[in-house]
């Protein structure tokens, strides 16, 4: 507990980094799936 209160700033830093990583991976996933759908659509409308 003492470690945490001493280094709380770095704990927050770690948490925020993890959150950002999560958001980034989520957005990348959406991007990839969208691309697939767009390609399918492009092919189907040709």
């Amino acid at each position: 507990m003492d470690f945490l209160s001493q280094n709380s700033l770095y704990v927050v830093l770690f948490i925020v980094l993890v959150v950002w990583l999560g958001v980034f991976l989520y957005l990348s996933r959406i991007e990839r799936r969208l691309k697939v759908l767009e390609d399918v659509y492009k092919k189907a409308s040709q």
Partner: protein
Amino acid sequence: MALRALLGLWLGVVIVLGFGLPMVATPVEWYQLPVIPGLEDKARIIFFHVPTAWLAVVGFAMSLIYGARYLRSKKIDDDIKSSASAGIGFMFCTLATVTGAIWAKFSWGTFWNWDPRQTSIFVLLLIYGAYFALRSAVEGEERRATLAAVYAIIAGVTMPFFMFIMPRILSSLHPEPILNTQGKLHMNTIMLLVFLASLIGFTGVYWWMWRLQVRTEQLHHRIGP
């Protein structure tokens, strides 16, 4: 794809610097940040809270612009872009309000005290809420797009009045580390750099999310009901 990876890395670095750079009373090394008396470590919020507020405004501005464009072009594409920016702006507005309130609790003791800055971000939140309430209450794609665009314009036009009410309300507890009343920049250089980098990074995230939303809606539209 490389651009997205760059964005990811960019914001990662910003986060590390924002939290990691040491704050000392008298900065000697180039990487040391000054301690702002009364705020200390809490000042770090500037790197994250201000960009969200900035994007809340940007989201609304873009929504207004594309709305006006829709009124002239009548192309549903413009409405798609307008509502997409409103959606993402709304999200950032909520984040800004919440992060602001949390910071307020730590700095001033209460979550809310009707400080002009807090009030204005809250009003923006109300406008966003009203915008979406309107959209969900109107049937018909064209009519919904038109009325939403009109409301965005009317609400947008009254927003500047809040900027004028603010200086009239004498005391604000909200810190002004960027631009003080003389309009001069007096932030430490490295802090300014990290702040600007964060602003750019967050804007990049906004842009990415907006593009994703727009592309999804466009695809949705083309595929049909």
